[in-house]
């Protein structure tokens, strides 16, 4: 039967045999199969598209909900686009939503988060890059031991160190303040950042360092004049890693700050999960989106660098 068909329509046979052969020889690393709508392609793209829809759904639902008025939410379903677009929920979430007695919206949490994130990122990256540089180029006795302790320490659950850090912060008078939280982020960002910078500096050609030494440059000169300008990409990766990590932090924020200094994530949770009052789902979703906006913008701008950053920082969790 098949043979008959083949003889009857030689062009057809060639057309269908070609991709079959190409497929057999190609595998994932060969040339792209000729036929666009082969069963294999439909399966691959179909599955990926389906999964993509699943991944995009929550974002879509959040956006749609935040643009609806409350009456429309009560009537309609969460997937339907807004009949009447309103930005009222966004304005309310930003400037008048209540947490406890404070009714000045998420803006306070936003600025707290900015005031926490900026110095934390700057401080943690400066310290960790210098540490990494010392470990890679100026090895001294015992340095590796401390470094090993540091990296192993990254695996200890934070809960184990929460209270001792409270005591340390209380002793130096920073408990409950923004600067206390900055210090905490600097401390707990250190393992992964030091590892990142140490490995990067160790991969730079040693001759550069030696030549600078011969020319009489010292520890700080080499760092500032040679290492720093040469490692901008890794600094960008570190900045992406730290900004998203610190912005998204909840645990340290809730433990080490007071209601006045709560970062955005903590305030968001308090707004949405408040027990009293009528639930305004549109305001809640607008607030949620506002909090997620900063890391999302960074993510969509930075693209592949973000992937590098998280691949390095994923151990941090």
């Amino acid at each position: 039967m098949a043979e008959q068909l083949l003889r009857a329509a030689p062009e057809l046979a060639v057309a269908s045999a070609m991709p079959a052969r190409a497929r057999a020889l190609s595998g994932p690393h060969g040339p792209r199969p000729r036929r666009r709508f082969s069963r294999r392609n439909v399966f691959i793209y179909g599955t990926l598209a389906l999964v993509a829809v699943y991944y995009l759904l929550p974002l879509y639902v959040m956006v749609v909900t935040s643009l609806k008025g409350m009456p429309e939410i009560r009537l309609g379903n969460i997937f339907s686009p807004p009949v009447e677009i309103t930005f009222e929920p966004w304005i309310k979430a930003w400037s008048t939503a209540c947490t406890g007695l404070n009714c000045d919206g998420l803006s306070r949490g936003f600025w707290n988060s900015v005031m926490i994130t900026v110095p934390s990122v700057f401080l943690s990256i400066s310290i960790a890059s210098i540490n990494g540089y010392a470990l890679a180029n100026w090895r001294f006795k015992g340095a590796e031991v401390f470094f090993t302790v540091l990296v192993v320490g990254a695996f200890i659950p934070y809960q184990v160190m929460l209270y001792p850090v409270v005591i340390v912060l209380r002793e130096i008078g920073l408990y409950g303040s923004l600067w206390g939280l900055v210090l905490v982020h600097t401390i707990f960002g250190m393992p992964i950042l030091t590892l990142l910078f140490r490995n990067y500096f160790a991969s730079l050609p040693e001759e550069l360092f030696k030549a600078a030494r011969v020319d009489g440059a010292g520890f700080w000169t080499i760092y500032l004049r040679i290492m720093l300008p040469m490692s901008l990409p890794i600094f960008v990766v570190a900045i992406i890693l730290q900004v998203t990590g610190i912005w998204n932090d909840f645990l340290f924020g809730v433990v080490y700050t007071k209601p006045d200094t709560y970062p955005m994530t903590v305030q968001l949770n308090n707004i949405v999960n408040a027990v009293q009052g009528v639930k305004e789902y549109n305001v809640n979703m607008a607030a949620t989106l506002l909090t997620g906006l900063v890391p999302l913008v960074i993510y969509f701008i930075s693209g592949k660098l973000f992937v590098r950053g998280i691949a390095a920082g994923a151990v941090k969790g």
Partner: protein
Amino acid sequence: MTPTYQGRPFSLFRNLNAKIASIPMILTALVIFVGGTAWTVFYSFTNSKLLPRASFVGFDQYERLWATPRWLVAVENLAIYGVCTLVFSLVIGFVLAALMDQKIRFENTFRTIFLYPFALSFIVTGLAWQWILNPNFGIQQVVRNLGWESFTFDPLYNADIVIYGILIAGLWQGTGLIMCLMLAGLRGIDGDIWKAARVDGIPTWKTYVFIVIPMMRPVLVTTLVIIASGIVKVYDLVVAQTSGGPGIASEVPAKYVYNYMFLAQNLGQGFAASTMMLLSVVIVIVPWAYLEFARRRRHG
């Protein structure tokens, strides 16, 4: 650059700048990581309440811990969440990576979509899914409006399955990263392996299972460690989605620790619980580190 010690009198001052620069690292490692951990373990054997007090009670706190239903629920939840997260994120992550590795178009678009949840805070993820799973407005109501009146899907309000509701959100956020790691692993495999398998007529799925996956061992180990260390830390997600409810049904160890340390003012309990968390990590990490180092030594 390694300093050579030739009997110089002041070896402490050799490399002085590097040592000064390392002070923050040394302090962090010794005071916070070693000191803090030792301190917590030490005080877990006391009956500290509001403030840490060094009055020892032996293993009392641990006995009380394992007799508390809340802790047992927390441990059970973590076990379910952990096993499911491990299995599902590995399987889904690998399948997605294998599909992405078929020389497809729009690879970057797909990757961007799969990975964006990972950029979000667990709080944001939790609140978004809390809304979608809301029985009065979310998926359940949408399906009911379509005409299936008895449809029930309210994981966050059903104590028996609440942990799976949290799992859905956790997987949504985390699998993109696993997919990326797996994809990097797949790309690292020599194309000639695939050609050789073709020549020998081995079907694709067999090539994956018996050749490619065993070759991806280093990537798999890294992935496993990443997933595992994320599981123990699960806290924000639960707080955002259910605050531990309904009742105590979605309690997890990290939340138990926080509640006893900072809300219930029962520090000793909190220390004992956090020490148990540390112990669970040690049980996972130590054999892994041992095997890894033993392997490396054998292979030089």
